[in-house]
């Protein structure tokens, strides 16, 4: 395997490539924000970044550490209140893509970011919780998930449904009245999964260069479905790597010494 880049960098590049120029994207902090900003810095200069802090059309030249960094407000087309971003922009379906991370994910793309282990009142691990995710997952035209693939995250059953993917399978989103399309693609450090058009089950459709199907299966707690025509993705280009490293370097500097 080419040692020019890490598995995380491959994942971020693969996720960035999923974002089409000119679309509006609701961006969570962390991996989604890195990938969305990389997309803007490479093939999608007109990608509209929307942050739940109320920044519509933010154009940061470095990665924000939080969803409310000053650089987002300074560069936004409009800064609106938090009730407005959810009620006027997200809820009516004005946003094309919701871009989410996950602590746990199941075969139907349901996401947990609330609690792991034990029960809700006495969990083994208390995670931050929902934030904007339940309504982003419900109302955006489609959802892109970026998450590292391993047995802790890719579980048979999520311990808590924070955000709904395809629920228990076909027809569930319609039955629940969720207006958005649900997860279109899941990008991991090993490859790409897409929902089967009939069963809605996440199916491995692409591997990153150098990764094997067995590795992906071993990192999945359920019996992973693999597409008949499994492909291998392109490695990051020199341009993608340069832009991504420039973005993350500014954040590290930022985290150390303040803005």
């Amino acid at each position, binding site marked *: 395997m080419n040692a020019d880049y890490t598995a995380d960098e491959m994942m971020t590049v693969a996720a960035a490539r999923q974002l089409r120029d000119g679309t509006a994207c609701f961006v969570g*902090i*962390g991996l989604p924000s890195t990938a969305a900003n990389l997309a803007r810095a490479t093939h999608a200069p007109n990608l509209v970044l929307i942050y*739940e*802090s*109320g*920044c519509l059309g933010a154009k940061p030249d470095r990665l*924000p*550490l*939080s*969803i*409310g*960094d*000053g650089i*987002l*407000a300074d560069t936004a087309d409009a*800064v609106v*209140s*938090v*009730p407005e971003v*959810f*009620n006027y922009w*997200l*809820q009516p379906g004005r946003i094309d893509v919701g871009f989410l991370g996950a602590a746990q994910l199941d075969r139907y793309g349901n996401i947990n970011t*609330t609690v792991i282990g034990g029960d*809700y009142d*006495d*969990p*083994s*691990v*208390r*995670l*931050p*919780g*929902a*934030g*904007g*995710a*339940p*309504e982003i997952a*419900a*109302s955006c035209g489609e959802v892109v998930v970026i998450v590292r693939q391993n047995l802790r995250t890719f579980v048979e059953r999520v311990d*808590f*449904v*924070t*955000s*709904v993917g395809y*629920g228990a399978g076909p027809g*569930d*989103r319609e039955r*629940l*009245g*969720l*207006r958005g399309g649900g997860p279109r693609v899941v990008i991991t450090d090993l490859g790409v999964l897409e929902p089967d058009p009939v069963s809605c089950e996440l199916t491995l459709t692409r591997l990153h260069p150098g990764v094997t199907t067995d590795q992906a299966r071993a990192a999945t707690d359920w019996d992973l479905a693999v597409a008949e025509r499994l492909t291998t993705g392109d490695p990051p280009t020199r341009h993608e790597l340069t832009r991504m490293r420039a973005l993350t370097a500014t954040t590290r500097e*930022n*985290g*150390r*010494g*303040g*803005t």
Partner: protein
Amino acid sequence: MAKLVALSDGVADLVHDGDVVALEGFTHLIPFAAGHEIIRQGRRDLTLVRMTPDVIYDQLIGAGCARRLIFSWGGNPGVGSLHRFRDAVQNSWPGPLELEEHSHAGMANRYVAGASGLPFAVLRGYTGTDLPRHTANIRTITCPFTAETLTAVPALRPDVTVVHAQRADRAGNVQMWGITGVQKEAVLAARRSLVTVEEIVDELDPVPGQVVLPGWAVTAVAEAPGGSHPSYAQGYSVRDNAFYVGWDAISRDRDAFRDWIERHVLKVEVQA
């Protein structure tokens, strides 16, 4: 008309043991100085309300001020977990913490209902998630016009809301700009309000994107320059990202946390 007060007097007058208290500010303009004053004055049994209980509530929870938390996202933005919050939930340290958990959309709408004088808000939210199974305050309602099933959440009416803003004039009119989050709704939803500001000025010059809270809608204003650090006040300061990164190690350890509170909150001389 809002009274101009010293921060310590404002907290003493407006924040009482057992109150439902909202400190708002969405990453920007977080009222840290007021939060520290609440810790110094030893408030107990508070129901703390906040969309994003980040480092400020980690401090209040670890210092033993809170009995209950109403929230939608409890993390250290861009860094990771809140260890005092986790310690309270997982190990009841320094005491048990009751949770009422929502999504951002739900919390924002609860403030809107409170500000609007309505008993509840309606939204498309929470559907299919496990949140309604654990949060009794998430219900469904049938639209009387379309018969659609929608989600209802009750109004939030804090006893007191505390926010930080850039400026106020001598009549207590408050001006803020940049990311203004849910502060207007949180102030208007509350029975009492305390606003800390970077500075009190004679004249509020207009600023693009400003939100103005008229003095007659605010209970008290206290000058607290730098009062949002390590958060920031657009036009006055920048976010101290290094502090947020460094907080992880401090809050991970009970003794390190107690030591930090002792040195940076309890032993701080406060200007009257």
